[in-house]
């Protein structure tokens, strides 16, 4: 819990330091603040420090970092650190961008710790509002402006729907605490029927969250917003928002375990259509960034499969999948950002980098294998665990997801066709910098965790 405070005050400090400091020192400051937050999460989970005494004014049980939330919080912090370190310099003066990203991260942390609908709502808002600004942070870019406006309008709508759903849930159960909702529902299950208000409420709240994680029928904003936003923000949206959204969704659904068979009925079709539509639309994309946006939609579909089963025990599966998705996507966004020009955003940008920059090519291959779920990377372990866990409750969904994964290979592997093409004799040029160290760490961790999945048991 102290991590939220560390990130918040750190971001506040960064705002002021950013008024007259260089970018490089700020990135280092941001990384160290996030590192401190990560250490505090770890220490709190091991019981080394206990800060509950400072938070007596928080009504009991509104925010609880259970072991799951602690793991996801650690993943979020690490991902934010990777994104902030890998992504390019901010073009305009001022470092509000990094500070705003960290404020947004606070919202994500609040979302996954929420055990109360109002706290969940607050988390979603704190996550989203900085992102509306960040999407348009390149003020002269007309596509950025479009992305910002579109994201703002869609976000406002989805929030309104979420709030309506929360009202219905309150009307149906008389409480907003997850554990009390669970109690009422187990009671209702005993009599064989769930109140219609609870059913409507769950549908509306789910719609609000599905908007945020961009599942099909609610995905239309995401390719446009990802394409228009600056690359670092698109990566942030694709990774942090999705991880926080799914973790919060899973936490929320623990309150609805008695209704599990009922909500599977309509969530399974959403999941199946998300997997298929996301993968098939990604096939047709010219722009690599837009393809990544559709790929993130299809990943939302796989993750929804996990939510269909009664989620109490194997939260680890969710954590591993989110970790592998985050690592792979971060590297792909970084490489896209490094090679894309304003004219060329197709896979052609990667032509011949196997000769000019072997290291980047290697990272590209590993990250692609990870997001596609090929063995020897963590992506395979994640996908295997996810599908195995989801199979008993959602057999057809898993079969469709396998078809979707097969389709996804054909667009993920597009860069490989041009990777080894040379136009002339080119000189390899690698300047080892801090970014390379970071990239090396991420790439290696994907391979090592894939080859030795035992390590995952140690992490989670």
């Amino acid at each position, binding site marked *: 819990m102290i991590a939220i405070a560390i990130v918040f005050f750190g971001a506040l400090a960064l*705002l*002021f330091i950013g*008024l007259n400091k260089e970018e490089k020192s700020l990135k280092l400051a941001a990384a160290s603040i996030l590192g401190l937050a990560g250490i505090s999460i770890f220490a709190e989970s091991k019981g080394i420090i206990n800060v509950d005494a400072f938070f007596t*004014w928080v009504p009991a049980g509104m925010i609880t970092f259970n072991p799951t939330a602690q793991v996801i919080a650690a993943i979020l912090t690490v991902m934010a650190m990777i994104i902030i370190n890998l992504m390019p310099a901010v073009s305009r003066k001022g470092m509000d961008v990094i500070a705003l990203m960290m404020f947004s991260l606070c919202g994500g942390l609040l979302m996954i710790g929420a055990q109360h609908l109002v706290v969940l709502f607050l988390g979603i808002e704190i996550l989203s509002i900085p992102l509306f600004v960040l999407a348009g942070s390149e003020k002269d870019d007309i596509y950025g402006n479009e992305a910002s406006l579109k994201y703002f309008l869609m976000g406002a709508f989805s929030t309104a729907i979420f709030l309506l759903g929360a009202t219905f849930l309150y009307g149906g159960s008389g409480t907003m605490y997850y554990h009390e909702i669970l109690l009422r529902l187990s009671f209702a299950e005993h009599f064989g029927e769930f109140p219609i208000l609870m059913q409507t409420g769950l549908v509306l709240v789910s719609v609000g969250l599905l908007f945020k994680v961009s599942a099909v029928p609610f995905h239309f904003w995401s390719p446009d917003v990802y394409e228009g936003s600056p690359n670092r923000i698109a990566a942030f949206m694709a990774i942090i928002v999705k991880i926080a959204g799914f973790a919060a969704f899973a936490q929320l659904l623990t309150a609805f375990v008695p209704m599990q068979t009922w909500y599977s009925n309509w969530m399974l079709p959403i999941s199946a259509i998300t997997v298929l539509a996301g993968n098939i639309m990604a096939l047709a994309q010219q722009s690599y960034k837009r393809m990544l946006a559709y790929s993130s939609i299809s990943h939302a579909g796989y993750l929804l499969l996990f939510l269909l089963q009664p989620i109490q025990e194997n939260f680890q599966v969710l954590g591993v999948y989110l970790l592998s998705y985050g690592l792979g996507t971060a590297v792909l966004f970084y490489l896209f950002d490094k090679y894309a020009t304003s004219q060329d955003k197709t896979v052609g940008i990667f032509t011949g980098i196997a000769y000019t920059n072997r290291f980047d090519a290697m990272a590209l291959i590993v990250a692609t294998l990870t997001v596609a779920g090929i063995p020897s990377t963590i992506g395979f372990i994640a996908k295997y665990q996810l599908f195995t866990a989801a199979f008993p409750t959602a057999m057809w969904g898993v079969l469709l997801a396998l078809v979707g994964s097969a389709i996804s290979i054909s667009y993920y592997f597009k860069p490989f066709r041009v990777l080894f093409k040379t136009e002339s004799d080119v000189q390899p040029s690698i300047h080892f910098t801090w970014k390379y160290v970071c990239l090396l760490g991420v790439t290696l961790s994907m391979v090592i965790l894939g080859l030795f999945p035992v390590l995952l048991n140690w992490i989670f």
Partner: protein
Amino acid sequence: MSTPESYIPILIQLAFSIGFVALALYLSQLLGPKKKTKQKLEVFECGIESQGDARFPVSVKYFLSAILFVLFDVEVIFFYPYAVNFRELGWEGFVAVLTFVGFFLAGFIYVWKKGALEWER
């Protein structure tokens, strides 16, 4: 109590209001006189001839000042309930309000240092 049937009056009212609006619009279009000359069909804006595109850069200085004013105005509004309950809330309330004002003050200093309050720039 909350059976689906109890929403029927709302539906009837909805149907009636939509029907009335549609009918009124249709009737006025049907019965009203129409003279479609070129001048009649022109875009009318307060008697001034319209020119150019609506999409051009507008100075945001006034908007910025206005929105900052609204922010701090809202802060002041929160003082009223606090002032009324000052005694009951005691030290805990005082600390909470101090935190709240502290965050606002940080924002104010940031805005100031950033130069958002300078009109001539």
